[in-house]
């Protein structure tokens, strides 16, 4: 169980990272305030557009996107061992580097899920939307999947950013913006040109969000299952790609000297 021990130690480091950003109180009154006011503005845009359907569409989209965007912070977290100076030490240690990195970054997956859960609760209450309990529960299960998918994507981007740390915040913001723009959060995926749709279908959240909309809208079980299966495939793909990329780049750093870059 060495892999598990390393993961666990990494997770403890990740929790310490999280504490650098928030206490429990500031998570609620600073982080969540930011997320919710942002989401409120987008949902209200539906009223500016003069459509309650649009309001509902944006409500669901941004409640899910809040969690996915939060999980994307894992991309930044993959670069922090560079800033700590522990990256070379991790590379040359006999234990699994991947376990350490995933352990440290997975706390952001948890943050994503918690953010999405609170977004659902507050936004739905604020706009008077009351879903059926079974639909709500099922949706939250898919939210977990969406956040995992985003987490995998974040690990992959983080691997590429690990020796280009100065671009990490730009990459995080742009990733988040892309998800919100093209994954069906604000407008249907079909609104965008075909090439953009292909990209949307291959990145996190698109299928998971479609599944959640179907669940809340009492859509056909077959369609729901199909969208969930697609999201599982996307999540698996990005997780696998991130593991392969991290392995190649981190170990390759010893050959090209990037092991020492910050």
């Amino acid at each position, binding site marked *: 169980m060495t892999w598990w021990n390393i993961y666990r130690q990494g997770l403890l480091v990740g929790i310490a990272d999280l504490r650098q950003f928030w206490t429990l109180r500031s998570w609620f009154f600073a982080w969540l305030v930011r997320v919710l006011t942002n989401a409120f*503005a987008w949902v209200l845009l539906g009223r500016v557009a003069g459509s309650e359907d649009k309001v509902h569409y944006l409500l669901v989209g941004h409640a899910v996107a809040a969690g996915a965007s939060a999980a994307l912070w894992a991309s930044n977290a993959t670069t922090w061992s560079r800033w700590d100076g522990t990256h070379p030490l991790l590379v040359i240690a006999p234990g699994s580097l991947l376990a350490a990195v995933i352990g440290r970054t997975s706390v952001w997956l948890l943050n994503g899920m918690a953010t999405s859960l609170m977004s659902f609760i507050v936004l739905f209450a604020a706009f008077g939307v009351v879903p059926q309990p079974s639909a709500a529960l099922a949706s939250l299960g898919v939210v977990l999947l969406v956040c995992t998918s985003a987490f995998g994507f974040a690990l992959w981007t983080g691997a590429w950013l690990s020796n280009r740390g*100065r*671009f990490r915040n730009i990459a995080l913001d742009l990733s988040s913006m892309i998800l919100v723009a093209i994954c069906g959060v604000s407008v249907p995926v079909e609104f965008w040109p075909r090439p953009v749709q292909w990209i949307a279908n291959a990145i996190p959240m698109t299928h998971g969000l479609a599944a959640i909309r179907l669940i809340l809208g009492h859509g056909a079980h077959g369609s729901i299952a199909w969208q969930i299966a697609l999201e599982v495939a996307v999540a698996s793909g990005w997780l696998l790609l991130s593991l392969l990329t991290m392995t190649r780049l981190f170990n390759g750093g010893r050959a090209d000297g990037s092991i020492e870059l910050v």
Partner: protein
Amino acid sequence: MSGRFSTRVLLGAARMQARLTRQKIEDLRPLLTMPPIALVSVAVLVHAGKAQLAPYGLVAAVLMTVGQMGNFVASEIVFMERNEQTLELVVASPASYYAVLLARILVLTSLGVIGALESWLLVRICFGLHLTVHHPGLALATLAATSVAAAGTALLTTALFALGNQVRTFQNAINGPLYLLGGVLVPTSFLPAWLQPLSPFVFFYWAANLLRAALSSAEVQGAAVGLASILALGAGAALLGYGVLQRMLTRLRRSGALGLT
């Protein structure tokens, strides 16, 4: 606060910030990440068959770009200086640290105005919408006043953030409520009634209204009041920032925490 507030100090600090920003692409992050908001917001409106409301999306992107240059980039200055241990050296110099900050922050928020052009171009290229600036003088004056007000606000926030350890927490937290209250994306008439009286105290409120007016063919009313309000609110924040900065520096000199190590 002791320290010389001279042209030489202001120009030297401004020049230094311009040089620094040229090397640090990270400082220009809002210019890269905020204008795409225009894409998303205009897409919502176009999809709803309300393309004529596209100026709302453009205005949001423009103001958020300037706002983020002030809130994210400029507000980090004191925190970063403590971290890099250059704050001690500036404080020990004859220059007024307030003057140094003012100059550096003004450079950054002024750069935020570039977001206006970027956002306009994005909307044009992606949606084929040519958003006419019917009152360009008003638009330019509003952008200038907004960047000054953003600088004044950043002077306050950078001093406040410097005292706290969780700078990112608060830095991330304040922009959402300010944009919502200021009606940056959605006019304040859509906010709950109990929130609306607070809006005029946020300079974004006046800036958003004026920019939308500048994009409208209708005659503009209350431009002078709007511009004066933006500048007054910015000046108020700047004055408050002066007091907070003075107290902050004294506190840090007393506690020995001018540097973070």
